[in-house]
């Protein structure tokens, strides 16, 4: 071709003068871009998930089946072990389902307000709704009892404490409303954002009252959000150990304690780890854990089926009633009720412990060294677990959304939820059994705790990143590829920039969940490793040192906020530089 004074000639000249990149870089790029390298990496990620996350999580099921004879001899014949199991399971599942139903009814009007209305202080309302998540569930357990409960051993009460019940069911219900409500509002609001208001407007233009339009048009489009919300809430309520254990131990009569599933696991595990002579409790622990895992999986599959497949016959319309309910006082009453619920049932009980600082006295001098090392352990575990979640979870999300093996991707997409749905205390028991059964590698206590935390925080990163990747136009990556980008370059330069907020959100969720977790830590290693929530539980249970516990909770709150704000700031700062 002739050399002309055209851009073509310039392009040709540029093409011959390549060499802007050092040789070793090109070489490295070429190696990581080979299909074999990619396959190897995916294989590693999937293997990691299967062997180090999923298998240990479900190991206890196989353990119970294969060791059934022993369990029969040790547990089923001993009323002291067998009798608490049934009521505990009933308490766990009964409370979880009740709380999910209340959350749904109370959460809808608030989600609605947040999405469909613009008003001053909306950001504040958003933050307020999320704020209980910043308190560990152990802290919430103490706080809720302080507000609603009648403790067995009297505690100095701040002004305003209601002190109306010592019933375990009600206590747990009040507790789990505070631990789960933000999840419900978030899920409902997320789906509501996606639903175009035009549908509702069209129905109203066709003569439907607002209530009729919402009920017949918008709500049915909403099932996915309800399903997600219900599953998140139930999983969280079933999983919580620290809060349930603390709340129950504060109201329990020590001679006749009532536990739910996770608190029972926590109690027995504490006994075993303090006294090797009680080793037979391990069989009971395995049985309770297996039952909780099976029941929670069954419940959640059933729930998914019910919300997505079963049609609620609500086609009928009552025009005059619904019109009357859509105007004037009823909507206002509904909104006021939603705010009263938020204030009285969620915010006040969640942060009531702050007031304890004014009325309480330390029973023993606060051991700051112990607190400092607990913070260190919490952050070390949370940090490493989150880092592993990212390193393995992001590639796994890529495999699920972009991989060539669609079937395997879909299967992984479903399986990744298992460690989240399974109660973390049961997961911890399973994990400890799995590693205890290995002859050749027995990881240290710290590694075990980190592995357990990876298992139940892993889904947060994967879920968030999968969601973001599904929203992303695949044409972006494809175009980048045809423009000459290797897969890793296309990811780093194009995809990553778009999913970075989701990665950040996922890591913050994973990290805060890890820092607030009690059950998994205790059920893996007993009291040998003390994170802050474990410390809070221990302070209250062993020393009745409510004051130090409250201080520890406040300090953790401050440090966590600082860390999260710091991460946010760092990420945003880099973003503005391009």
């Amino acid at each position, binding site marked *: 071709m002739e050399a002309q004074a055209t*851009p073509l000639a310039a392009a040709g000249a540029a093409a011959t003068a*390549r*060499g*802007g990149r050092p040789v070793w870089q090109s070489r490295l790029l070429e190696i990581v871009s080979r299909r074999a390298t990619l396959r190897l990496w995916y294989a590693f990620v999937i293997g990691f998930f299967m062997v180090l996350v999923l298998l240990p999580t479900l190991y206890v099921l196989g353990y119970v089946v294969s060791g059934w004879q022993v369990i029969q001899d040790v547990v089923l014949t001993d009323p002291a072990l067998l009798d608490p199991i049934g009521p505990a399971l009933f308490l766990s599942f009964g409370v979880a389902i009740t709380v999910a139903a209340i959350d749904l009814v109370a959460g809808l009007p608030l989600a609605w307000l947040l999405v469909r209305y613009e008003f001053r202080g909306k950001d504040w309302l958003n933050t307020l709704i999320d704020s209980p998540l910043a308190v560990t569930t152990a802290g919430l357990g103490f706080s809720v009892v302080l507000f609603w409960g009648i403790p067995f051993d009297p505690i100095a009460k701040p002004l305003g404490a209601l002190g109306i019940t010592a019933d375990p069911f009600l206590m747990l219900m009040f507790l789990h409303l505070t631990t789960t409500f933000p999840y419900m509002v978030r899920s409902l609001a997320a789906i509501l954002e996606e639903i175009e208001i035009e549908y509702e407007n069209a129905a109203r233009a066709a003569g439907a009252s607002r209530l009729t339009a919402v009920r017949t048009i918008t709500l049915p489009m909403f099932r996915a959000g309800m399903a997600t919300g219900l599953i998140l809430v139930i999983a969280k309520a079933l999983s919580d150990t620290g809060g349930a254990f603390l709340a129950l131990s504060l109201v329990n009569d020590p001679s006749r304690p009532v536990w739910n599933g996770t608190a029972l696991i926590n109690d027995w595990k504490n006994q075993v780890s303090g006294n090797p002579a009680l080793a037979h409790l391990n069989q009971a622990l395995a049985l309770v854990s297996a039952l909780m895992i099976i029941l929670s999986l069954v419940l959640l599959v059933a729930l998914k089926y019910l919300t997505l497949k079963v049609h609620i016959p609500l086609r009928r319309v009552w025009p005059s009633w619904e019109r009357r309910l859509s105007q004037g006082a009823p909507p206002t009453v509904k909104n006021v009720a939603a705010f009263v619920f938020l204030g009285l049932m969620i915010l006040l009980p969640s942060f009531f412990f702050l007031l304890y600082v004014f009325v309480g006295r330390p029973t023993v001098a606060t051991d700051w060294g112990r607190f400092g090392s607990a913070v260190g352990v919490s952050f070390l575990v949370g940090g490493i677990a989150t880092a592993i979640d990212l390193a393995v979870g992001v590639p796994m999300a890529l495999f699920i959304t972009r991989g060539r093996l669609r079937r395997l991707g879909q299967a992984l997409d479903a399986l990744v939820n298992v460690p989240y749905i399974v109660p973390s205390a049961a997961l911890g028991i399973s994990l400890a059994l799995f590693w205890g059964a290995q002859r050749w590698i027995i990881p240290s206590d710290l590694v075990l705790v980190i592995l357990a935390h990876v298992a139940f925080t892993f889904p947060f990163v994967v879920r968030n990143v999968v969601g973001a990747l599904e929203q992303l136009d695949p*044409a972006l990556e*494809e175009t980048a*590829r*045809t423009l000459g980008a290797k897969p890793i*370059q296309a990811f780093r330069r194009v995809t990553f*920039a778009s999913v970075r907020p989701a990665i950040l959100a996922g890591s913050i969720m994973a990290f805060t969940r890890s820092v607030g977790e009690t059950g998994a830590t205790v059920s893996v290693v007993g009291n040998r490793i003390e994170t802050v929530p474990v410390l809070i539980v221990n302070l209250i249970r062993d020393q009745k040192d409510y004051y130090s516990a409250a201080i520890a909770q406040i300090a953790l709150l401050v440090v966590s906020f600082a860390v999260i704000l710091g991460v946010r700031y760092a990420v945003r700062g880099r973003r503005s530089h391009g």
Partner: protein
Amino acid sequence: MAEVQLQKITKRFGRTTALADIDLTISDGEYLVVLGPSGAGKTTLLRTVAGLLEPDRGSVRMAGRDVTRLPPDEREVAYLPQTYALFQRMTVWENTTFSPSVKGWATRDRDTLAREMLSMVHLIDRGESYPRELSGGMQQRCALARALAADAEVLLLDEPLRALDARLRIELRSELRDLIRHVGTTTIHVTHDQEEALMMADRIAILRAGKLLEVGPTEAVYSRPSTPFVANFLGEMNFFEAVSYPAEGGGVRLAAGGTNLHAPERRDLDGRVMAGIRAEDCGIMPEDWRAGQGVEGIVQRRLFMGRRISLEVRAGDLGVLKVKPLTAQAKWAREGDPVFVVLPAEHILLFPIPPGGIEAALEVE
């Protein structure tokens, strides 16, 4: 620059065959437009050339090299998807230098090329802007600059003008065409817009339900289409069955209903044929003027379209004829008027009778 050869390309998605035995050669520096209705397999074809899809059978060759199994980044193609896929978090400049950067060019060469491309598409002053700050037309040009800056041998354009307003779309046709002709890259452009195809293509290929119906120079395909489908897709046609006889002095004589018409000869056809004429090629006059060959009829429907008028004329045994004369020549025609429709011999096209009937032969899906 390179010649692109597609040999026996077949691609299935489940049960549907998206591409069936496609053989197509695009010569070096040629601008080929693939025209077809939506769902014909146009995008699949483009993605196969780009390396984003692997064909089930057949091969893709570029400059004689078999690239069928190569990933997109090793193919020297630049693909411009319908949505442009501009990288939203990069500026116009970063978008344009994307390809040279990932290929590891020296900074100086990269910058020279990017500047050249951006001035060519008149965006050199907007280098710091983000794509969302650009108008639709600018986004389109930015995507083009990015594609050209890839210094690729083959440019693949998927409905490049589709996302634009009608007016801009028409303006950008010639601009886009000139730019690419200037650079001289081999180009495959797919569209469902026949006007766009006719205006921009060196050669045109017609795709229908995964099959390649016809390939050829634009004007030849337009004036001598090989099937009723192609004829109709390139411009609205009237079809009627006729019997053809050899005529004295060349050409054929057609007996259609009660009318006798002359038409150019088609050697391979004899006896019963499907005759067709484009709506725009028909003339119209008041019934009592009548000049040349044609049929009488009554205007049933009149739609004013600006430069042209669209008429539907009931013409006895030939059925309803669509006629689109220039407004200046036909503004007198009213619904209910008796008229004479002129069917000039040189515009009549002859086809074999389609086995499944003319409706099926024209169906788009």
